[in-house]
């Protein structure tokens, strides 16, 4: 188990390294940042000075090694727009993003998992059909449409909540609800199919046949086994805590990472985009490792085999 996790950690670090490299080369394949920032008709001396200042006049491999060395030291360059360290600019936005993604995550778990379990236990009932219909809507309604419809109802028509901005807890309600509803629908669907899969297994029938009450069959045999596939999707949701709100933050003018990313992309502030890319990859990779730990904890088979997931 320990050896396996060490291997996972190495692979995770390798993935991060790949993302850094990807960012670097895409950055340099994309044309001359000096011309983009300063515009093509800037005086040649200015362009030369800009290149020297950002190290763009040196050979590519020197730039790459330099970049890696600096990245390892935690220095990922300065924003090309306002000159402050890009890492600082990005980290400033993390609390705002977490302020809506964490409550949304709790909302997803609180609605999605019980709804999925209930639907599976009452298969083909009215509640089941309703849950499934709503969860299909969760897959097919884009988050910006859901967000705008909620704004139309609760901000424009009813005037209960602010339509955008970030003053006070009231303005966080609509972003949280938007993110939460969509995630809950997906989670409900996954939980339901995981439960149905487990409930069809022979050991459930065996447990019922030996005279256990249905309640105990469900809580002691079905739920722990259904938790395994559900963990995967919950882990994925943990991974998107940082980057899962790009569209929603933009709709509600919420000053988080997502909105920063969109404006950095529009302004071609490459250093900031890179840092966000790296932060997102690091979050996803960390979430995957946590999921592996959780697997080992909830699934005794994994512990004895020492092999989790894999291809």
């Amino acid at each position: 188990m320990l050896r396996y996790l060490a291997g996972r950690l190495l692979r995770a670090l390798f993935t991060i390294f790949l993302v850094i490299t990807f960012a670097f080369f895409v950055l340099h394949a994309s044309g001359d940042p000096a011309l983009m920032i300063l515009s093509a008709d800037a005086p040649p001396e200015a362009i030369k000075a800009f290149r020297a200042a950002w190290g763009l006049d040196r050979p590519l491999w020197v730039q790459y090694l330099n970049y890696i060395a600096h990245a390892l030291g935690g220095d990922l360059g300065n924003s090309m727009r306002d000159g402050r360290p890009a890492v600082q600019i990005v980290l400033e936005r993390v609390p705002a993003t977490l302020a809506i993604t964490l409550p949304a995550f709790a909302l997803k778990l609180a609605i999605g998992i019980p709804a999925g379990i209930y639907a599976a236990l009452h298969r083909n009932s009215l509640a089941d059909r309703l849950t499934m219909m709503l969860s299909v809507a969760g897959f097919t309604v884009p988050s910006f449409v859901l967000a705008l419809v909620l704004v139309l109802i609760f901000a424009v028509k009813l005037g209960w909540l602010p339509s955008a901005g970030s003053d006070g807890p009231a303005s966080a309600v609509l972003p949280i609800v938007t993110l939460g509803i969509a995630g809950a629908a997906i989670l409900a669907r996954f939980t339901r199919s995981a439960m149905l899969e487990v409930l069809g297994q022979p050991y459930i029938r065996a447990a019922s046949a030996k005279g256990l009450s249905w309640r105990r069959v469900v809580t002691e045999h079905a739920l722990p086994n259904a938790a395994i596939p559900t963990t995967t999707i919950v882990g994925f949701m943990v991974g998107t805590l940082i980057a899962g709100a790009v569209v929603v933050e933009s709709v509600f003018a919420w000053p988080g990472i997502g909105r920063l990313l969109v404006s950095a992309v529009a302004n071609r502030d490459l250093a900031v985009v890179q840092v966000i890319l790296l932060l997102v990859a690091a979050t996803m990779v960390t979430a995957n490792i946590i999921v592996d730990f959780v697997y080992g904890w909830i699934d005794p088979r994994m512990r004895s085999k020492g092999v989790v997931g894999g291809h």
Partner: protein
Amino acid sequence: MSAVTEPFPRGSISRFFEAWPPLTLIALGWIALMVVVALGADFLAPYSFTALDLRARLSPPVFMGGSWAHPLGSDELGRDVLSRLIMSIRLSLLIAFCGTLIAAAFGTTMGFVAAHFRRKVEAVVLMMIDFQASVPFLIIALAVLAFFGNSLILFVVLMGLNSWERYARIARGLTLSANEQGYAAAVRQLGASNLRVYGLHVLPNIASTLIVSMTITFPETILLESGLSFLGLGVQPPLSSLGNMVGYGREYLTRAPWIMLCPAAVIVLSTLSISIVGDWLRDRLDPTLR
């Protein structure tokens, strides 16, 4: 969609609806309507999608008390919403269609390559799959658009790269098991080239699974395209896609909600219809999938 020609032993209506559930028929009808609209956009649009009618700015649609001159209303510049909607449907469907084809073709090829060469090549493909899974594609797409700027071709290719890894995984897995079955070895013994083995023998055997996957990719691509266009980072004006229209309509949410609601409804109905048809196809073609 030739439902009538389906032979039923007893030919009763109930049997017909068992094979073709009403919901599926409605979904198929909507998809057919969208395809007709996309193909015939030039003939169906009542106005040019850029034509201004400054005397009829922000006029409401018929069902909100407007006139038949602009059945779905008009926007801030007096452009006809119906005409813009028709053109946007065409572009959005075209992008989603091309994107899905690129994803399926590229992903399946990578899956074949991985399963054929094994060892190092396979490891590289699996690493690429891991990489794609490690970062949400919306972020990758935004990064690439930031670095390369925006062009329609690049955008379509990006849409195609969205879900290639799904096809690669499926194709690799199915090819590995196909290679262990007799038929692939048999045609190889007969001297068939690799291209022939994979193109003519393995591909038809895994086609149904790939087609079902395409019904998942297609709505995903519509959602991704409209999301990016909504953010102003996808399709660029003067071209218009469904996401652009919603993004533009958001500015007029209080005064003219129809500008945003019409394209939003089309996005939702289209993705919903394809999902319904996909579920139905899955049950018919490929019972092995969940």
